[in-house]
């Protein structure tokens, strides 16, 4: 099943012609299919109870009747899922039409103000005349209106993408329990993800195919895509088509030097290769709420990904970081704990929990419920390792009990002990990693992308369960000895012909492992590598 990354901003034509009839048509078809299957199995049970109207008793009759009723129960479960999919499709179509009406109204509103709206939603002053200051004011208003239109357009695209996610999540219920192929014995199969018993999926990562490198970091390979000319790293994607960076620097034409941007957050969209392109100036220079002494900030190192849990809850994971003394070229240690921020709002985001003893935390929604598969690094030196847990379900957005580590379930390996993977033990090393997922016809696949133990490259593991993923053999998808790698991020997953999947990725790379004085940061340390990893299906 396809996975859906944040959508690009739709054009004006796409907005005007946004389709929804396929959802209404699908809802009717799924309900009809549910009705037909239920009626067929109801008749089947009646046939077995009294074949041709005759009386059939005895052990054989009882076995046949029990078999038919079991099958009917399984079919009822399938029909329930089909009807729920139909309900999601109908409600989703209404929501998408509502979002479409909103953005169309916004376009009309802007046009009524005397501005033209281009295909890419750029608002331009359509009037002539007026004083210079009036024209300047209208140009400024046009820029604001452009942002306003794109914000609403993103809302439309997000609504469609959310409905798509809800549908595919619900439809997972059609997998698993199957009736036999009609060979005279019923087989109930809890098979998940084509993984056998160990959760290892058989999906195999290939080698990273590099599309490009942005010197100085930051997605966007040229001025057109990175008009702000910023240099930074990490690039953590969060819900709402937003991306956060670590140490942001922007070139200042007046002073001919780089100035700090703290931890800037931007709206982004994905280009045709799945690369995040920044949409405009920072929407926040300090996305986290709280008191930060000078030289201190929470560096965003992970999140729950670009798609929140089904209930709309997304989280940002950040590490408290204190800059070294002036002139220092040595990175200070990262905090051993992780701050958790609620990313549902516009930001600055409120802190909601502290995860004790885990750093470089990343997570991804687990299954179809409001639970997380979460991972972080514990220990240091030779004892440093990445560990994995599954959280309880979040009872409601805004309730943080599920982040209580005492209630987390460790992900166990084949020998029954908690799985741990060796990592770089240097406390100053940025070990930010990424959990992601994609859905296939045979179930969800979980993906771990993390720096290898000496940070000279990136390893990837794929599995149909958390256990399978964590214990899967590592595939070195990217390696460049002598350089330091961190913050691999999967930005998009697209199906490939033949049953494979293409993972678009960004990787942060530094030429030297330790920090350098601020004035030198923008010149030499950061590179953002962008490319793709194909993940091939089991043979």
């Amino acid at each position, binding site marked *: *099943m*396809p996975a*859906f990354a944040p959508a690009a901003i739709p054009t004006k034509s*796409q907005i005007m012609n*946004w*389709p*929804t*009839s*396929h*959802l209404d*048509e*699908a809802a009717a*078809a*799924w309900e*009809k*299919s549910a009705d*037909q*299957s239920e009626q*067929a*199995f109801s*008749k*089947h049970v009646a*046939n*077995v109870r*009294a*074949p*041709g109207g*005759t*009386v*059939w*008793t*005895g*052990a*054989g*009759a009882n*076995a046949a009747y029990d*078999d038919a009723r079991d*099958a009917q129960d399984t*079919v009822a479960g*399938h029909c329930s899922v*089909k009807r729920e*999919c139909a309900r999601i499709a109908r409600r*989703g179509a209404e929501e*998408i039409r509502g979002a479409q009406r909103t953005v169309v109204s916004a376009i009309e509103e802007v046009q009524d103000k005397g501005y033209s709206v281009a295909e890419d939603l750029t608002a331009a002053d359509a009037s002539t005349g007026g004083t210079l200051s009036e024209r300047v004011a209208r140009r400024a208003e046009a820029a604001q209106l452009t942002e306003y239109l794109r914000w609403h357009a993103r809302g439309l695209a997000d609504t*469609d*993408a959310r*409905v*798509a*996610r809800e*549908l595919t999540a619900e*439809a997972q219920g*059609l997998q698993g329990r199957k*009736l*036999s*192929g*009609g060979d*005279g014995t*019923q087989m109930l199969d809890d098979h998940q993800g084509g993984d056998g018993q160990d959760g290892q999926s058989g999906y195999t990562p290939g080698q990273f195919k590099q599309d490009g490198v942005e010197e100085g970091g930051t997605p966007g390979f040229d001025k057109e895509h990175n008009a702000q000319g910023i240099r930074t790293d990490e690039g953590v994607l969060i819900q709402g088509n937003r991306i956060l960076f670590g140490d942001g620097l922007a070139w200042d034409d007046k002073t001919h030097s780089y100035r700090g941007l703290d931890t800037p957050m931007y709206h982004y969209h994905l280009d045709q290769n799945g690369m995040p392109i920044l949409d405009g100036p920072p929407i926040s220079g300090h996305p986290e709420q709280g008191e930060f002494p000078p030289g201190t900030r929470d560096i965003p190192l992970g999140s729950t990904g670009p798609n929140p849990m089904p209930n709309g809850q997304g989280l940002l994971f950040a590490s408290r970081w204190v800059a070294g003394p002036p002139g220092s070229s040595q990175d200070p240690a990262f905090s051993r704990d992780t701050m958790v921020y609620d990313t549902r709002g516009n930001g600055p985001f409120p802190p909601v929990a502290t995860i004790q003893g885990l750093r470089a935390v990343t997570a991804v929604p687990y299954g179809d419920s409001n639970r997380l598969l979460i991972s972080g690094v514990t220990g240091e030196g030779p004892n440093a390792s990445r560990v994995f847990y599954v959280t309880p379900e979040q009872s409601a957005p805004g309730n943080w009990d599920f982040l209580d580590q005492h209630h987390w379930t460790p992900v166990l390996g084949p020998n029954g002990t908690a799985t741990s993977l060796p990592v770089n033990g240097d406390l100053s090393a940025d070990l930010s990693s990424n959990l992601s997922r994609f*859905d296939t*016809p045979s179930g969800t696949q979980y993906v771990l992308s993390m720096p290898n133990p000496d940070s000279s490259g990136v390893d990837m593991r794929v599995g149909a369960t958390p256990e399978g993923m964590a214990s899967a053999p590592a595939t070195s998808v990217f390696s460049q000895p002598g350089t330091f790698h961190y913050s691999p991020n999967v930005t998009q997953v697209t199906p490939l012909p033949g049953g494979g999947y293409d993972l678009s990725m960004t990787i942060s790379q530094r030429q030297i492992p330790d920090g350098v004085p601020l004035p030198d940061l923008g010149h030499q340390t950061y590179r953002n590598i962008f490319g793709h990893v194909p993940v091939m299906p089991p043979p």
Partner: protein
Amino acid sequence: MSDPLEVTPEGLRAAAASGNELAGELGVSPIAGVSGDGVPTAAAVEAVHALVASVRADHAGYLAGRSGSLASGARGYEETDGGSASKLNGAL
């Protein structure tokens, strides 16, 4: 001693024929092509369609298989009364 069967070969054949008919009905998909190409929900609908079709095929296969067992039982019943009971019990 065999189970007390009062069922007849005709009854079993009628049940088998009915089951085959039900399997045939489920074999015809109520799902047409997907419009709305290019938006995420279109891809999602297509993916759900594929799962629904797979489940329907599974249902149809089950019904066809059980129909075959009932028809086989009817043939065995006609061959020998005692044999029919064990064959039918073994088949289902």
